[in-house]
């Protein structure tokens, strides 16, 4: 019978595949969670832009599987497709089977990292940023003082005019363009380690200030603390907290990320907090996943679970505690952009919208493809400027076409990116800034 032989042929093919299957270091069971239905495809920014299966979540998982089964060898093309992923996790939102894509891509990058050939300058730069600067508060401070001077005293003007950076590195040149105005680094001192609310204390909250936030967007941090205080929170901002490790995880430097995680857990766990609040979605998502990161560290796993259970994104926290709604009017037409790490990473979609809707005079506008990545994705816009630009253009078209006066979101990376794309006086805010504004009766 035809049907019969046809089927048994297939069985044979499969069992042969079985034999050559050699489980690599990527979690093979997680790979098998993907049943190849393809429902993720149209949620993936790179697939939407390129229409290439290799640049889709399903395709990348297929590549990982082929790699695990030794059906393919690492190659430039493989690196390219794995690296082009923004890790926006929109596919995780779409996946009905709950495939842990982000973990898979991180593991894959970690495995592929040693096999990549970097130039020595690039290698040096990478280790400088990941291993030396970001983990150290002092070095970061120094860097931002430098950048502040650079902006403030016209050096930037000269550099840009002469296109000096373009001679050194195209990427550095692209990165420089992204550089927003930097507040004076000393402004960070406005947030003291312990700040008490004027009225009755309802919660004791730890504030995770974010390593870059503190220098680039100190105003958002100040707004966050203000809003927390207005809601009866005692805010503790430990001085010795460190970077959450997000950049290291994305940059295939998990070991450093683990050390950073341990440091943060140690810092916050002794403070007897009701919640640990972060205002950058890229941080809160990683903080919430510390147990995953430290799953093999016996000494830390349980502590990580306790730590992470307390982590809240600012909008999530304010929504849960039923925000004090003594707002004054903020009349503005505002478009909301779903930051990937908020919407896809943490499923926080409704909360910020509900908060914003409570502000009198504020008109909240839904944009199309609201939850499609803006191209920022950590330092993606520096490493893959081409794709980042395409996605930014798409995002800005969607925003501008609504005629909104401002766009609001809950992630620093997005803010940097959106500032770059904003035209016609479009303002860019963090959700918490608008809430702060409503408390301050600060009409603009």
């Amino acid at each position: 019978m035809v049907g019969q032989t046809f089927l048994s042929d297939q069985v044979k093919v499969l069992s042969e595949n079985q034999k050559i299957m050699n489980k690599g270091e990527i979690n093979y069971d997680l790979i098998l969670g993907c049943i190849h239905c393809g429902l993720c495809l149209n949620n993936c920014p790179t697939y939407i832009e390129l229409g290439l299966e290799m640049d889709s979540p399903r395709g990348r998982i297929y590549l990982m599987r082929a790699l695990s089964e030794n059906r393919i060898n690492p190659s430039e093309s493989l690196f390219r497709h794995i690296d082009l992923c923004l890790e926006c996790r929109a596919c995780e939102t779409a996946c009905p089977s709950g495939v842990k894509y982000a973990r898979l891509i991180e593991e894959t990058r970690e495995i592929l990292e040693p096999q990549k050939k970097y130039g020595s300058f690039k290698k040096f730069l990478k280790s400088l940023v990941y291993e030396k600067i970001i983990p150290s508060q002092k070095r970061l401070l120094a860097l931002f003082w430098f950048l502040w001077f650079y902006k403030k005293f016209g050096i930037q003007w000269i550099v840009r005019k002469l296109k000096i950076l373009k001679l050194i590195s195209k990427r550095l040149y692209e990165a420089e363009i992204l550089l927003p105005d930097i507040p004076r680094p000393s402004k960070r001192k406005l947030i003291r380690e312990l700040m008490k609310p004027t009225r009755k204390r309802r919660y004791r909250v730890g504030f995770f200030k974010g390593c870059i936030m503190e220098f680039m967007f100190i105003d958002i941090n100040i707004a966050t603390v203000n809003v927390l205080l207005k809601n009866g929170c005692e805010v503790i901002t430990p001085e010795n907290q460190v970077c959450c490790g997000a950049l290291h995880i994305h940059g295939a430097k998990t070991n450093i990320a683990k050390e950073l995680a341990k440091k943060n857990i140690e810092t916050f766990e002794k403070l007897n907090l009701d919640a640990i609040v972060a205002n950058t979605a890229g941080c809160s998502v990683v903080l919430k996943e510390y147990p995953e990161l430290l799953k093999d560290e016996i000494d830390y796993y349980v502590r990580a679970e306790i730590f992470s259970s307390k982590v809240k994104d600012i909008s999530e926290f304010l929504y849960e505690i039923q925000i004090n709604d003594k707002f004054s009017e903020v009349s503005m037409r505002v478009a909301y952009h779903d930051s990937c790490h908020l919407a896809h990473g943490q499923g926080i979609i409704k909360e910020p919208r509900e908060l914003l809707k409570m502000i009198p005079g504020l008109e909240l506008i839904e944009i199309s493809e609201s939850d499609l990545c803006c191209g920022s994705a950590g330092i993606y816009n520096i490493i893959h400027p081409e794709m980042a630009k395409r996605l930014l253009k798409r995002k800005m078209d969607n925003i501008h076409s609504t005629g909104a006066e401002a766009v609001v979101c809950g992630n620093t990376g997005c803010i940097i990116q959106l500032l770059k794309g904003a035209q016609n006086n479009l303002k860019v805010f963090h959700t918490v800034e608008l809430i702060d504004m409503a408390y301050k009766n600060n009409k603009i």
Partner: protein
Amino acid sequence: MLNNKIIKKLESVVGREYVITDDNELIVYECDGFTKEKHKPEAVVFPADTEEVSEAVKILYNEKIPFTARGAGTGLSGGCLAVYGGVIICLTRMNKIIDIDFWNRTAVVEPGVINLLISEKISKNGYLFAPDPSSQQVSTIGGNVAANAGGPHTLKYGSTINHILGVEVVLPDGTIEQFGGKIEDTNGFDITGLMIGSEGTLGIITKIIIKIIHLPEGYETFLAVFETMDDATSTCSEIISSGIIPTAMEIIDDVMINALEKAFKFEFPKNAKAVVVIEIDGIKKGMARIGEKITNICTANNAREVKTAKNDEERDLLWLVRKNAFGAIGRIATNYFTNDATVPRTKLPEMLKFINEIGIKYSLTIANTFHAGDGNLHPAVMYDETDTDQVERAFRASEEIMKKCVESGGTISGEHGIGFYKKGFMHWIFSEEDLKFMKNIKKIFDPDRLCNPGKIIE
């Protein structure tokens, strides 16, 4: 064989960056939603328009190299596998909605347009593209046309074939032909109708004229909960025979409810053996009476409860859950195997009992989520591909179910198509003469057997 010279030629047609020949990249094109068989193409090209498709096809035609069109690759019967190698012509770049004409209720689209995007684009004007395969958020209209895709709402609105007015096709020799048009009545053979469901074996569709329909004034969506599958299937059968044709009527069984609950936390009633989702739409006036009739039939068939979606949000969530059902199988199994055999609706109770027996016979879990209103079954036979014995049992189980459907007066595919997977079963429903008849159709269009060879009847 594809050599460098031919690749150069293809590159000169579509541009260098739109031809893939790297082995590590080609591997992702070796299968679609049907993963049991894998055939790696020798190259993938991404044309931008009809002319590029035509030029590429001409090159391949002259060199006698097989080619296969592909969209999003969500097909469930291996319709876009490069069985004999050759070139995959991927149409994802051809994703423009060219024209929307509300007066005539038509639109002209390229094949790479995502099904759902069409409805999203026209919904604010009060229109909708009716065919809604569960993959509609990703699958392309070209793929839908090739497979004559269905979906839950085909019960009232019909399959893709009932919504296509015309197609532009690049024939296997590279010539471009337009069949049909915005006007439904055209002189001559209805070649448009023949093209729909031909699974890319008669040519490559490069433009499609679709019908769009007015959104109904209202919807009413019911969720009826049953203690036994028999009651659920009898209910569906009875609703149809009572003269009500709902817009959609879907059954979800307990295995699938479990998977969906894990994925969406929809809060389906606990311990139910099956739920039936019934939707009616149209003019609000009079809908209450239809709703009442439906509720009465459910209750008469021992429904534990009949719930109604309170608002659009609840309705949308219910459909989201239903449409993601197959995707959610990954929650409970590593692999599954689904077919879409269709039986006369009155045979549903009998078939579901049979499927249950098959599950026991082969000791396999089988989940059922299906278009009960159409008699279109979707038994998902689950297995673990690392267990060779299980794989074989799953194949057999699936095969036996299909065979039983045929014996009950049904057919082996209602909406997924035959593709590569089911071609070996075609002789169950067609005689040698019938199959020769189909082969002759193929011969008219593609005498050299270059266009998606090895599918349906080959």
